[in-house]
């Protein structure tokens, strides 16, 4: 009995190992040969995403490398969250913040907010949400143009009072049948602007340090 076991053990393990070696080698080689292209694709995709809210011509630095990590309760952060700093010829040009609105209808709404150095919004996009399809999901650009209504707005345009949905006597439209979601988004963007207003010096200070280090 025993010799049979050991024969079986040896035979099977060798067989399995042989196939493992071959298959893994194939995969590893494929990985090696696609690695660099994947990396470029990944970056390109990220740049495309950022480019939607911050046109590529409005900065000249390597945006993806110019990143700092924030953990700000005002922005609804719970972990270190990347913030991209854009510059033109070393001068502050814009920041791209990520903000989380925890008071969506059915969960947190994550936003990417682009703010020019002068405090105007270059664009806002939703990157993740769980709102009701057909109601709250019109904050997506794919479903409605509503999210573009932030373009060009700033902390004082409209007034403090206007940073709310129309139902709350603000300037921003709500959707038919859904107020919670736009209310949450508007508030989150407003808070982001406030944060930028208070902290832009620190944000761009980072630019200086990287410059210096370079």
């Amino acid at each position, binding site marked *: 009995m025993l010799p049979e076991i050991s024969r079986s053990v040896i035979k099977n393990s060798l067989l399995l190992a042989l196939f493992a070696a071959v*298959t*893994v080698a194939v995969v590893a080689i494929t990985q090696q040969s696609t690695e660099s292209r994947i990396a470029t694709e990944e970056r390109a995709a990220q740049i495309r995403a950022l480019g939607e809210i911050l046109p590529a011509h409005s900065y000249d630095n390597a945006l993806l490398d110019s990143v700092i990590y924030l953990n700000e309760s005002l922005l609804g952060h719970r972990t270190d969250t990347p913030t991209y700093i854009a510059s033109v010829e070393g001068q502050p040009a814009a920041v791209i913040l990520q903000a989380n609105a925890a008071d969506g209808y059915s*969960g947190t709404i994550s936003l990417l907010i682009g703010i020019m150095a002068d405090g105007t919004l270059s664009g806002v996009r939703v990157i993740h949400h*769980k709102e009701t399809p057909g109601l709250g999901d019109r904050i997506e650009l794919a479903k409605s143009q509503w999210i573009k209504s932030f373009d060009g707005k700033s902390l004082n345009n409209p007034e403090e009072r206007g940073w709310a949905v129309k139902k709350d006597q603000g300037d921003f439209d709500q959707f038919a049948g859904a107020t919670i979601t736009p209310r949450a988004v508007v508030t989150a963007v407003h808070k982001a602007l406030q944060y930028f207003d208070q902290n832009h010096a620190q944000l761009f200070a980072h630019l200086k340090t990287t410059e210096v280090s370079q």
Partner: protein
Amino acid sequence: MSELLLILVSAILVNNFVLVQFLGLCPFMGVSKKVETAIGLSLATTFVLTLASICSYLVQQYILKPFDLEFLRTISFILVIAVVVQFTEMVVNKTSPMLYRVLGIFLPLITTNCIVLGVALLNANRSEYTFIQASVNGFAAGIGFSLVLVLFAAMRERIAIADVPKPFQGAAIGMLTAGLMSLAFMGFSGLIKL
């Protein structure tokens, strides 16, 4: 503790792996004609799921991550799963021929039950999961799978003796029923706000 509870509720009800995340559907449709067999498969799957979650977590943490081999995730996880399943199969075959008769053809299918690999991969994607959390997630996925499978099987037994129109008999009405189950499970959406 509450973290684990959330994982449980999420995996079983809100984001049920079968009805909402579309994992493990083949056995869900294939082994739900009789409750007794469904229970057998549930037990086996839950067992394999938990074990596979644990093993793949270990592989991920102690082999793939340290050596930067994360592209080998799929291949190594599936290897782990296949071995766990095959081993279970042999043991069941020897120790309980009755159970083997019930599960025989489906034990190998657990290997290709997406839910097992799916949970392992999702666990790996959630890099913040601890060992306990990963195992609980695997276990909860198994419970969620078992729950809907058993409910579905009992329901299909009832439908089997109903006067269903001819073209719909069998798989088609099963699929529609699963759709309506999934519809009912949408009632749980929003229960967990993360």
